[in-house]
């Protein structure tokens, strides 16, 4: 997959996902900072970094599961932003545009690393043996309505990379399946299937937290 083409393009359609705009409402002073940054205003760059560093870093950390790599990728994302901000035309929320840029950088980085690439592809197209088992008839009624943010964060961090990627992109970041399919170079059906399997795996992890494999470096470790 050629991720480079997705990095800074206005890939969102003219009628973008209204849900994303709802989740990315305009930030006071952001539009002015963007215009000033386009003209090379250093203070405006600093302002944009302050406004968006936490979301970009958190996204990187969730996708990579590693503090050091997440910081490196945050740095790369903002360097790309500063170099290419002139191509932002405001057809989508700025944060949506920035997150798409970040996601594509992370994916490119993962694909450059042989092991992660294999791991990602394996879980994007897992064998049936790897898929979460069907679990009708053995439901734990405690789960419904009682999932807290910290437990879910921990469970997400222990997902296989491919599952984690699709879950974070769809359920956390709010990307649509067709967008995820483009980013991950898979079909929309594959994206839907992977999301479902990710949720099934999370259900198991949340029902039996003691059986959860410990992630190498979870977001908890970043604290």
């Amino acid at each position, binding site marked *: 997959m050629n991720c480079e083409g997705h990095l800074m393009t206005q890939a969102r359609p003219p009628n973008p996902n209204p849900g994303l705009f709802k989740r990315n409402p305009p930030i006071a002073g952001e539009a002015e900072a963007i215009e000033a940054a386009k003209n*090379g205003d250093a203070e405006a*760059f600093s302002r944009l970094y302050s406004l968006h560093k936490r979301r970009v870093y958190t996204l990187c950390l*969730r996708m990579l599961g590693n503090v050091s790599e997440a910081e490196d990728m945050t740095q790369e994302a903002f360097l790309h932003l*500063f*170099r290419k901000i002139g191509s932002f035309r405001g057809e989508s929320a700025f944060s949506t545009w920035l997150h798409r840029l970040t996601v594509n950088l992370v994916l490119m980085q993962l694909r450059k690393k042989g092991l992660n690439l294999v791991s990602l592809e394996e879980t994007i197209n897992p064998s049936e043996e790897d898929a979460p088992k069907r679990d009708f008839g053995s*439901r734990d009624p405690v789960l*419904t309505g009682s999932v807290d*943010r910290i437990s879910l964060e921990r469970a997400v961090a222990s997902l296989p990379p491919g599952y984690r990627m699709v879950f974070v992109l769809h359920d*956390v970041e709010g990307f649509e399946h067709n967008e995820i399919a483009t980013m991950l170079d898979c079909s929309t059906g594959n994206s839907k*299937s992977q999301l479902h399997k990710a949720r099934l795996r999370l259900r198991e992890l949340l029902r039996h937290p003691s059986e959860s494999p410990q992630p190498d470096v979870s977001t908890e470790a970043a604290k």
Partner: protein
Amino acid sequence: MSVPGDINFDDLKPEEFEQYLPELFATSDKLSDDPRLQKLYAAHPDCLALVRDLETIAETARSLFEPVEEPSDKVWANIQDKLREESALAFDQDGEQLREID
């Protein structure tokens, strides 16, 4: 698996129902309230339990959108250093400074 337009969910077995779940979740905001599925849920409460659990996970995931982590100060320092380097390089090559950070 795509969902046939004329499908009757009432008589599906749980295993058959789950084959359609990825597509059903992609097209419904609240699958547990979907009127097409209420008879199936009544016959197979575990199907409803599964759907509700997965809805709960998806709903809780939205709360993760708000960031809780912050990069260390060295990230911004590195960014400034890199941009200074690039700015100096641009000055050398083009005869004028394109961008200055401080």
